[in-house]
């Protein structure tokens, strides 16, 4: 009897150990399965690309992760001449100074969508004060797209030009970098690419499109209608009033980004401007709120109207915390 018991015990232990081993292995296998990283792609090429994220920082991404995204809808081609412009339009902007509190969402959106990487933004919100006794206010200034543009008059090679739809654009394949236009502009809105612009690989997308016949119909190539894509060393850049957005029936990026509804944009011929929320008659808006043009006495005939900061909706001081006197373009760390 004792022998039989011994044998059973041994066998039990034997089986028990086997079971324990299996359990242990199974447990390990189980834990490994539950930790399996699902995002790891088998097709990692190991090649890194520099891209700009949605908040303007530059990151390194594996090349296989990058997909070409089509920016344009089907209805975007008016087939107009780039130098003549969209027919039957005259674009104007209205800036309501009573609402601006230096949130700088306009600046971030513009910098991001035009890949501005220099030290000078294309839209700047100035801390303005006419005299010591008058009240300070925040004033966003873009290119005024003047009807009598000093910059266009002095350009020796026709690189910057005035369109029929009111926009003043730059052809950075023709610009010789003489900077006479910058000297002529009284609003100081033009910026120069003093060095090779550090824009990451936005150009890679353009090259991909050029080589792919399926994409041939879509225009993701360099055009004066999407300034900054790409920027060219030794040439001038500036606000373009976003014709690439207008073509998609979208408002310019600064207009749609502003959380306070400061910017109104529209077609003067339609006498209508909108900030995304309110849509108003331009003539009525200018009459009701005493609109004016900045430095109108110079005779440049700007296309941007300002509404003076009366009945302010925000305090000037609220904007001070965002104010950076020495920086207008956020740099990646």
């Amino acid at each position, binding site marked *: 009897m004792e022998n039989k018991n011994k044998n059973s015990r041994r066998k039990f232990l034997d089986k028990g150990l086997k079971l324990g081993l299996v359990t242990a292995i199974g447990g390990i296998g189980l834990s490994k399965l539950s930790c*399996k990283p699902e995002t790891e792609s088998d097709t990692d090429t190991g090649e890194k690309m520099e891209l700009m994220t949605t908040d303007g920082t530059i990151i390194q991404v594996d090349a296989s992760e990058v997909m070409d995204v089509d920016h344009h809808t089907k209805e975007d081609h008016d087939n107009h001449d780039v130098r003549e412009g969209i027919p039957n339009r005259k674009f104007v902007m209205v800036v309501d100074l009573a609402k601006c509190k230096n949130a700088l969402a306009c600046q971030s959106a513009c910098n991001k969508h035009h890949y501005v990487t220099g030290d000078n933004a294309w839209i700047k919100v100035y801390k303005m004060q006419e005299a010591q006794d008058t009240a300070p206010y925040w004033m966003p200034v873009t290119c005024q797209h003047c009807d009598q543009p000093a910059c266009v008059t002095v350009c020796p090679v026709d690189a910057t030009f005035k369109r029929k739809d009111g926009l003043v654009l730059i052809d950075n394949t023709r610009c010789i970098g003489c900077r006479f236009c910058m000297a002529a502009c009284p609003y100081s809105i033009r910026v120069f690419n003093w060095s090779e612009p550090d824009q990451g690989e936005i150009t890679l997308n353009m090259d991909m499109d050029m080589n792919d016949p399926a994409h041939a119909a879509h225009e993701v190539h360099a055009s004066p209608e999407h300034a900054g894509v790409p920027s060219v060393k030794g040439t001038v850049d500036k606000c373009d009033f976003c014709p690439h957005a207008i073509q998609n029936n979208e408002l310019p990026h600064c207009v749609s980004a502003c959380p306070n509804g400061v910017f109104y944009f529209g077609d003067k011929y339609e006498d209508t401007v909108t900030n995304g929320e309110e849509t108003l008659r331009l003539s009525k808006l200018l009459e009701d709120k005493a609109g004016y043009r900045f430095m109108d006495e110079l005779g440049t005939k700007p296309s941007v109207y300002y509404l003076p900061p009366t009945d302010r909706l925000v305090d000037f001081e609220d904007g001070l915390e965002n104010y950076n006197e020495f920086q207008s373009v956020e740099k990646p760390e």
Partner: protein
Amino acid sequence: MSKDQIKLRFIFPALLGVLFFFMGSANLFAQKAKKNKARINVEYVKLMNGKIFFNIKASSRVNKETIALSDIDLTVYNVLDDEDNELGTARTNAKGESSFSLNSINAIKADSTDTYHILVAFAGNDAFKKAKKSIEFKDANIEAKIITKDSVNYVTAVLTDAKTNEPIADQSLKVQVQRLFKPLRIGKEFNSTDEAGAISVAVEEGIPGLDGNLTLEVVLNESDDYGTIKSMVTGNIGVAFVDESTYDQRTMWSPRGKTPYFLLFLTYSGIFVAWGFIVYLFINLFKLSKS
């Protein structure tokens, strides 16, 4: 074999089986725990010229932020008598939006109460759970006209139920002029239809339009029963605008092809005179070397 041995022999594979079962289900469990909830929003829009749209928005709340679900496939069904009849598929764009259109409302069928049921389904993918959204609506029509009374232009519109042709009262319509980015409102924000389902809104004078033409829209916006209905009517009741641009003129800021005449004259005559003399002088040099 003894009873004990048989028991053990049986228990061991059974325990293994249980182990594997848990492993397997734990696998599924592991995947389920990682996916986020997808949200689908569907809006029904009917244009009175025939087309109907389902404007779909797919999004998800991830880490307390709402992100758009771009490039996902959705299937649109017309639900009738508990049967899902597939109408087609749609793919969201970079903003997570998609517009699924049908040529007319006749492409879908209503149930016995004249209500249409639409289902938009997302099958789910590695990152997001499957989701669906169903909407229901009845068909209604807006008939809009432009009339002139006492030299004032009015937009009149009548809202009727498509099936019964009965007017629909107390619905709020808006009247707006089509503009480039967003339409411009005419009249009051809310124009309630009367017992005859009608509204009449005066169009102010002096609204500019191309060659004086204006396209006006009468819109029933996101009503619970009828969705969004838009009726467009065009009339020459606006003011023709005048082209202000100097593009075709010869100005100092025109391109090189449109230089002002006086400038062309001055520069060319200056060049001609100076270089005329220079050429003459070079000829003299040549003559000197010969003589």
